[in-house]
């Protein structure tokens, strides 16, 4: 398996007044193509910061982020925009669907930014929402909305899926459903999936577990035999 993501001595500082906060403190790691990665850590540890830097939503203070051989930290705004469009599928805690567009339109929206022919209905069916295509987000439950957001993210066939607490707003049963879906994406479609979560249990299902504390990597574990999500004891 080839390395697809590499963090080299990544630092991220936030200045507030004359106080400097190190949200990312000399972070180094690599992720291989198709890996199912779980990032664990207490609140405020810097998990979201890590995802945002990787996803091109924010820029590093120093260090290198290399994705597919490209130096993301050196991109300007326009390059970042097209990097996000081509490589990154984001999934957030609060779904962030476009309320004015139907489910199907939310998915097919991606046609406007990437040169991929998207069959929205097919993608929706793959997340089990084929019969909700013409409903608006407000008419769906939280779990359904999150599935639309996954459909939207995978529709453009990104290099990686970045999921920031994707089950945070869902009940545990629905949460399992979502996580299952994400693991399938990784296993069957060879998409790299990175999930941020509080839930330490999920570690058993990951190919790689990265634990973060105070902006630093506490440890990193590689699971030779990850369990299926279904097999976990919730």
């Amino acid at each position: 398996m080839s390395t697809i993501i590499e963090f080299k001595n990544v630092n991220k500082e936030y200045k507030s007044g004359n106080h400097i906060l190190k949200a990312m403190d000399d972070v180094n790691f690599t992720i291989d193509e198709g890996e199912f990665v779980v990032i664990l850590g207490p609140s405020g540890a810097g998990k979201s910061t890590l995802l945002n830097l990787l996803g091109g939503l924010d820029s590093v203070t120093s260090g290198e982020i290399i994705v597919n051989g490209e130096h993301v930290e050196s991109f300007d705004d326009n390059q970042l925009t097209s990097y996000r469009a081509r490589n990154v599928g984001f999934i957030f805690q609060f779904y962030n669907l476009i309320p004015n567009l139907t489910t199907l339109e939310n998915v097919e929206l991606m046609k406007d930014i990437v040169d991929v022919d998207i069959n929205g209905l097919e993608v929706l069916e793959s997340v089990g929402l084929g019969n909700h295509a013409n409903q608006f987000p407000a008419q769906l439950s939280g779990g359904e909305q999150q599935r639309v957001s996954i459909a939207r993210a995978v529709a453009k066939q990104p290099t990686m899926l970045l999921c920031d607490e994707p089950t945070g707003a869902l009940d545990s049963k629905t949460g399992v459903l979502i996580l299952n879906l994400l693991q399938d994406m990784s296993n069957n479609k060879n998409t790299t999936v990175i999930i941020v979560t509080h839930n330490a249990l999920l570690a058993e299902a990951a190919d790689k577990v990265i634990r973060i504390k105070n902006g630093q990597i506490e440890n990193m574990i590689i699971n030779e035999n990850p369990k299926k999500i279904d097999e976990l004891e919730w």
Partner: protein
Amino acid sequence: MLAKKMMRDIFRHKAQFISIFIMAFLGVFVFTGISGEYIGLEVDSSNFYEETNLADGWIYSPYLNDMFLSQVWYLGATTEMERQMVVNSEGDFENEPEITLHFVENNTISKFYLIEGKPLDINDSNGVWLDKKFADAKNLKVGDKITFKYENYTIEKEIKGLGYSPEYVYHSSPVAINSDPDKIGFAYMSYKAFPEDSVPYNVLNVKFDGTPDNYAKILDYRLKGYYNSFIEQSDHPSVNRFSQEITKHKMMADIFPAVFIIITFLILLTTMTRIIAQQRTQIGILKANGFKNKTITLHYMSYGFWLVLVGSILGFILGPMILPRLFYPSMMRTFVLPSWAPVWDMSFVYLMVLIVAFSLGVSYYAVSSISNEKPSIAIKPKPPKVSTSGFVEKLKIWKRLSFNLRWNYRDTKRNKIRALMTIIGVMGCSALLIGAFGLYDGMNEMRDWEYGQINHYDSKLIINEGASVSQVNEVTNEVNGKTIMEGTIEIQSDSVKKTGSLLVLNDTNLITPTDKDKNRIEIANDEVSISQKYADLFDVGVGDTVKWHIRGSDKWINSTINKIHADPLSQGLIMSSDKLENLGLNYTATSIITSEHVNRTDDTIKTTITLDDIEKSWEETSETMWLIIYVLIFFASILAIIVLYNLGLMSFTEIEREIATLKVLGFKSKDLRRLLLTQNLVFTVIGFILGIPLGSYILTMMWQSSGDSLYMIPSLTITNVILTAIITFSISIIVNLMFSGKIKKLDMVESLKGTE
């Protein structure tokens, strides 16, 4: 505590609340400013009229003997009367100014208003009381001598006093379009100052009880044939012109504030609805903690209340202080009043109370939805508005529309009030601009029509009243000109009576009447033509008959109308000299017109008016017009900026999260900017298109209120529409650019952090 919350909320929505404040301020500012100005004029003029005991009417007659006077007295309604001998004289100055002399019997009616010197003394046969404006222009002081020439008399008197007269608030003259104090004036003297023993009185000033119409009727019944005409106060040229000016201002005071006040309420409504939707949960918590509905409702109602209250109080104070100062100077050049003081009126307070009450109502309407909900429901976030698919989405074409169009269509559907507000704002802006440029176009059109299509002479020589026919003929031949006769007439129908002008032409192509489409028309030798405006006013057409007489003559004539002409500046009848004489009237030439450029004054010619003079006085007349045009453009722009900025801000904060999401997904800032720009432009286009007919309507209203003597069909020129479009769209795009910047700087991570 709640007060603190209010301050923070207001601060967070500062743009909206500043707009509410400014709009409420401007509405009241403009209303009280212009009202204070025109009510001030009304009060100042009526005080002036009262103090000087302005006549209720004037009876013109050559037979003002004791017999006549006692007849007038026995009409019963007459309460006061007094004779005057009023004549035009020529001042002994290089430019031969026209001075109207009043030899008065007593001066208890239409009294001379003294500014300096000693009061008018009826026993003083050596003194003259002179028009102060004229005296100032000529640098004359009390104690100086002044000489008037009238017929064969040369009258030299000592200036005993300077002042004003209620009959000369506006001093018009055939010599100048505008009242030029250097060329025109008036003077009062005792009857004892008249060079002959017996004074040939020609005007009787009267005060009477009852309505002028009644008075005119009994006068006509008892004394018909013994007097030439009777003018009631409201028809007096000075009084009439001044009250027309006031009407014009009153109309402005009514139209503009309405626009601002409507916008105030719209912004207030949308802002409060938004705040309350956002704070639903907070409200639920407050309620759950035992706050009374009333307390909460009052809390939210107070937001708009304070701002509207402070804004309108400020407008109320500043309006009458500032706006009249802007208007009075240009008016002082045309009108003469002893006092120019703006006035505070009770109606200002009513308006304020009304606005504040209405704003409370609007806030209440916005709050009422939430205060009726159970806390347990209110505490949960309100489910987002569900979009629905309408028939448009069912159309085949929908699928092929770009994301931009689809998104904007749905966004508009979900935010109808916001859309409506923008459209109304843009509509108001473009209507005001159309009105402003339309006024300008109209002024130019009038000038081109009058001096390009109708009048082709270069100089107009005004003939001295005393000049003989042979003298006139001599000059006419010398300058290769033609004589014309101009006079004032009264036209009467069963219900309407109007003063107009008579123009008698002598087969000339220096004056070529036109119809209302500005096409030249021929008025044959035996034809009578009435101006379009009067044809409409009297509701007559070709073949109908009108009854008229020359002012100063009691010979009434019935004429059949053969033609209808149109003239932007003068309304009345046109005919040939043959026709005039056929009707039994004398043709007395009053001017000679010629295509040569001459400038002469002598025994025959009183003064010469050249096109240059007319050009100059035209510019002066247009000055007030320009002021109005600037004010209109200024307010139109403010209106558009505020409305569009508000809409932009409101929609931006509402969709900030969506924009951030789209950015995260990889949409380019450029495309997202286009998203907002599209919406903005579509609304601007709609508002602009709707604004055009509204603007034309405002324009028509403005021309209609500009007086009986003006005739203009307001036309909408391409330039007008283009200029309006340029300004409206520029404002729209500039305001939009302010938000484009925000899209680029938008912090995706921040915007997506949790919900509010």
